[in-house]
């Protein structure tokens, strides 16, 4: 079905599925099939922040004091996170917008991706402060084998869905040969690709950031790189919200509250979905291994980090109806909770003190003089 930016047919979006229904026409939010996405948009917008609000200048001094293995840990994590947010800043838009059918979900996807671009900009903000010329760091992201391996796995499901959608929207259903390769395109196959892609995104938001988060916060526990930690806290708060959205999408499908065919696919592809998650867990553990190959840092080692990955994996797998395969019962890094608590995410002083920074502010104080020239 050809994509159109403004569908001229009148459609009742309340009867549409989340994806693969009619293209959205009017961006209206007065009625919602799944009101959760409208609530997530509101919450996400209320989190708005700019990297420049966070002062990272003291980090440069701290960075010079770190040992070489610690520098390796910090920089590698920044590279990995840069990769993750490069993918997430564009892929939900490109993969999901051409097939989305609900205005509130369409806007959620756009809002979500926009925040990932803020994250990307914040890595430049951090790295510019640490190095006079951060090009070398950015350039290594497409050369470093450890990072490339992860990139391939993360982008695979997106690329698959995007390509199949393009074929479907230009050639329609059927068997198509492109560059000597045969592709079978039908709605069911497309929906399967969407289901696997959503699981891969869910695993990314659920697991892939947390090894880096733990390292950043472990530095902050030692009062090191606190500007960096402040930014990562803001990012972690956003990522938690993004994870909530993918968990909702997967559960709406699995519980038959959206497209009934997606409920069948969820059942049919359950093992594949589990493999995607387990694979992400395995890769994160390997990442921990790579981080600590030159030596540990105070307060963290490979084993405890892997246990933490297993601990959150258990929780996040159960949230989407999967089993909890790992033994870990208690949180191996309890201090992480303090950094992920949204109450502890401080706003920059200028944001709370200088009124021009306030968004949507209203002066609600009314004095008697205001009515001086008022007559009935």
């Amino acid at each position, binding site marked *: 079905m050809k994509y159109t930016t403004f569908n001229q047919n009148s459609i009742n979006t309340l009867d549409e599925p989340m994806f693969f229904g009619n293209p959205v026409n009017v961006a209206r939010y007065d009625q919602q099939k799944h009101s959760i996405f409208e609530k997530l948009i509101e*919450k996400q917008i209320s989190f708005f922040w700019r990297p420049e609000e966070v002062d990272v200048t003291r980090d440069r001094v701290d960075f010079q004091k770190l040992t070489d293995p610690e520098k390796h840990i910090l920089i590698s994590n920044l590279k990995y996170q840069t990769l993750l947010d490069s993918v997430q800043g564009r892929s939900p838009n490109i993969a999901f917008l051409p097939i989305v059918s609900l205005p509130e979900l369409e806007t959620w996807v756009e809002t979500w991706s926009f925040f990932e671009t803020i994250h990307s900009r914040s890595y430049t903000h951090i790295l510019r402060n640490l190095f006079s010329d951060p090009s070398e760091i950015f350039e290594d992201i497409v050369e470093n084998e450890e990072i490339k391996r992860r990139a391939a796995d993360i982008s695979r499901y997106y690329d698959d869905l995007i390509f199949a959608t393009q074929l479907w929207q230009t050639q329609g259903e059927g068997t198509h040969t492109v560059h000597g390769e045969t592709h079978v395109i039908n709605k069911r196959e497309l929906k399967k690709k969407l289901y696997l892609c959503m699981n891969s995104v869910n695993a990314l938001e659920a697991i892939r950031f947390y090894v880096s988060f733990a390292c950043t916060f472990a530095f902050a526990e030692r009062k090191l790189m606190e500007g960096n930690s402040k930014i990562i806290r803001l990012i972690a708060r956003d990522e938690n919200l993004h994870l*909530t959205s993918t968990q909702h999408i997967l559960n709406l499908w699995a519980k038959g509250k959206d497209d009934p065919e997606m409920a069948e696919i969820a059942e049919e592809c359950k093992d594949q979905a589990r493999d995607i998650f387990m694979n992400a867990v395995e890769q994160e553990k390997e990442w921990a291994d790579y981080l600590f190959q030159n030596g540990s840092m105070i307060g963290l080692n490979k084993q405890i980090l892997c246990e933490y990955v297993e601990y959150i994996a258990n929780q996040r797998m159960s949230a989407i109806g999967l089993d909890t395969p790992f033994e870990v*019962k208690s949180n191996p890094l*309890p201090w992480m*909770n303090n950094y*992920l608590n*949204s*109450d502890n995410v401080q706003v920059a002083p200028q944001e709370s003190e200088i009124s021009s920074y306030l968004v949507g502010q209203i002066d609600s104080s009314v004095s008697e003089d205001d009515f001086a020239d008022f007559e009935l």
Partner: protein
Amino acid sequence: MKQPDDAFCIDIVDTKCVPAGNDKTLLESLEQQGVAVHYHCREGFCGACRTKLLTGEVRYTTDPLAFIDDDEILPCCCIPTSDLKVIVPL
């Protein structure tokens, strides 16, 4: 009349029973009793404190955004309105 601090009894399966107030969130009550519940946002959007509710009723102080199943609650943003029986992974 019961004090607000021990208005209700929270039966944590396989662990112990603890009192909970009706003037603070269930998470705060449990923490006060030394029960370590996993949490992140404490605002109902992340779902880190998702807990299985076997019996009892709660009310929410804020609309929970995180995904929770029909038999689950978010202790960070709910207050018990009756005695509860819950499963807290410890």
